């Protein structure tokens, strides 16, 4: 990933977490990533337009809970928050992805954004994730927020 794209990704993601979920984050270099974290929610969202590709977000259930609770002004133990952890992660990737894409090409061309899908993270993928250059890793409140952007190129005519 080009450094400028990585910067847009990181700035947009950290700004949304700070302003709307009240979570201050810092970038985490790859060499600081240790062994595979525990349970993670793995959310993906495709897009196509001037560019096409996929966003992917990896967050722990605790991080999902904190984001959703702060976003909605609820307690982390609230029934709604706990019943909608994956939904909260999907909404987060939708907001971050839409805002990142709006910053490309001066936001002049529309994108068709897919419906986000969620699954449980497979820890067997961790080594590949650690080595991936298509990601930014943020840490806030001692929790990791890992965001990938895979651009597969311009769509076929």
């Amino acid at each position, binding site marked *: 990933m080009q450094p400028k794209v990585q910067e847009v990704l990181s700035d947009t993601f950290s700004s949304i977490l700070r302003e709307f979920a009240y979570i201050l984050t810092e970038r985490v270099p790859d060499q600081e990533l240790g062994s595979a974290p525990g349970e993670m929610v793995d959310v993906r969202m495709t897009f196509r337009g001037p560019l096409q590709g996929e966003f992917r977000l990896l967050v722990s259930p605790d991080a999902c809970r904190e984001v959703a609770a702060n976003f909605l002004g609820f307690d982390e133990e609230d029934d709604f928050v706990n019943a909608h952890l994956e939904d909260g992660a999907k909404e987060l990737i939708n*907001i*971050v992805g839409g805002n990142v894409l709006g910053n490309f090409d001066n936001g002049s061309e529309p994108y068709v*954004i897919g419906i986000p899908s969620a699954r449980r993270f497979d820890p067997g993928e961790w080594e590949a994730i650690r080595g991936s250059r298509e990601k930014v890793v943020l840490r806030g409140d001692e929790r990791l927020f890992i965001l990938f952007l895979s651009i597969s190129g311009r769509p076929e005519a």
Partner: protein
Amino acid sequence: MNKRPALNVMVADDSATSRTYVRKNLMVAEIVVKDFVEAANGQLALELLREQPIDVLFVDIHMPVMNGIELIRQLEIEGIKPRVKIVVISSDHTLKRQDELKDLGVTRYVKKPFTPEQFSKLIDEMFCGG
């Protein structure tokens, strides 16, 4: 500026979190809501809008079954659009998308994530001549 009326509000969004976020923002903005109706996609929203008097519809663009753009077009075809103020809420804020929404006669466009202050301002503009 006129006093804010109590409103019948619908939010059409496939995310329960997003629908709840709209409700929270209305509450924090001290907007009086008579009836708050939720729909998880455009088709369900359309069916409810045929039956119920709604003053303002908050609608996402990207939804399964029937998306927000298709819903707005259908509201026009069925003659429902003139009686509903339509506010599109979306993270998709490209300029062409905003032009497309203007052409569809959308009343307002709000980028996700939004704030209660934005809601307060747009309700005043739409219903109080502010």
